[in-house]
């Protein structure tokens, strides 16, 4: 679970000679951190709904501003990847024999993540054009 503690963060993260599992670990971690920081911001923006209509409207640009869409899409991808890869981890941890199918599970994760991400990005773009 941990990076090599004897090396620095960046070097141990980048020099690990793992296969597919290493990249999925980095992506899972980045996704988890990204969502967690967004969640803090998201709790604050929704808290403003309780403060006043005007206070919330000040923050609505987060969801309306077209220039911020790429950030939202990166987050959407991060959520879907973390969620589906997380399910793969859970399956492998509770049913260790599934670990023989790790490659197939990882491929399945990517297929579902791409389908969900393309769907939501497409829906957002359609909404912007409408």
């Amino acid at each position: 679970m941990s990076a090599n503690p004897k090396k620095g963060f960046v070097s141990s993260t980048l020099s690990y000679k793992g296969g597919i599992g290493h990249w999925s670990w980095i992506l899972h971690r980045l996704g988890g951190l990204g969502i967690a920081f967004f969640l803090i911001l998201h709790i604050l923006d929704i808290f403003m709904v309780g403060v006043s209509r005007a206070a919330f409207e000040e923050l609505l640009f987060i969801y309306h501003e077209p220039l911020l869409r790429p950030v939202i899409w990166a987050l959407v991808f991060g959520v879907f990847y973390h969620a589906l890869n997380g399910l793969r981890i859970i399956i492998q941890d509770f049913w260790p024999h599934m670990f023989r199918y790790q490659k197939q599970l990882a491929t399945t994760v990517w297929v579902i993540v791409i389908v969900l991400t393309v769907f939501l990005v497409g829906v957002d773009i359609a909404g912007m054009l409408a």
Partner: protein
Amino acid sequence: MTTRYARTPKPSGSTFEVLSWFYMRASGALLALMVVFHLIWMHYVIGLTNIDFDVIAGRWTGPGGIFWRSYDLTLLILASLHGMNGIRFVTDDYIHNRGWRAVVKALIALVLLLMVVFGGLVIFTFNG
């Protein structure tokens, strides 16, 4: 070691760490359903550009109010605890000094408390 997730080592020793390992998986399974539903609902059913004060207020005060408040509260608590515990895992991997670890853990706990208090406050007290 070729695969990081051959099997995530279940921590042995401290009961707290075993519980936290288990919590990450139990909450993760529930969050997968709830978060994907939340995203599809906000982007597809409502649409990002249509989100405004009336939409959010309407969800909480309309006929489905109890449902949405319960849904949002469940999501808030599950995700805040899962996310902050995850951040604790990450900081534990990189911060080895005992003193700093304690400081960072206290900060994480404080942020978690604030998240649940601020998020819970608006869900419970909003009345239009």
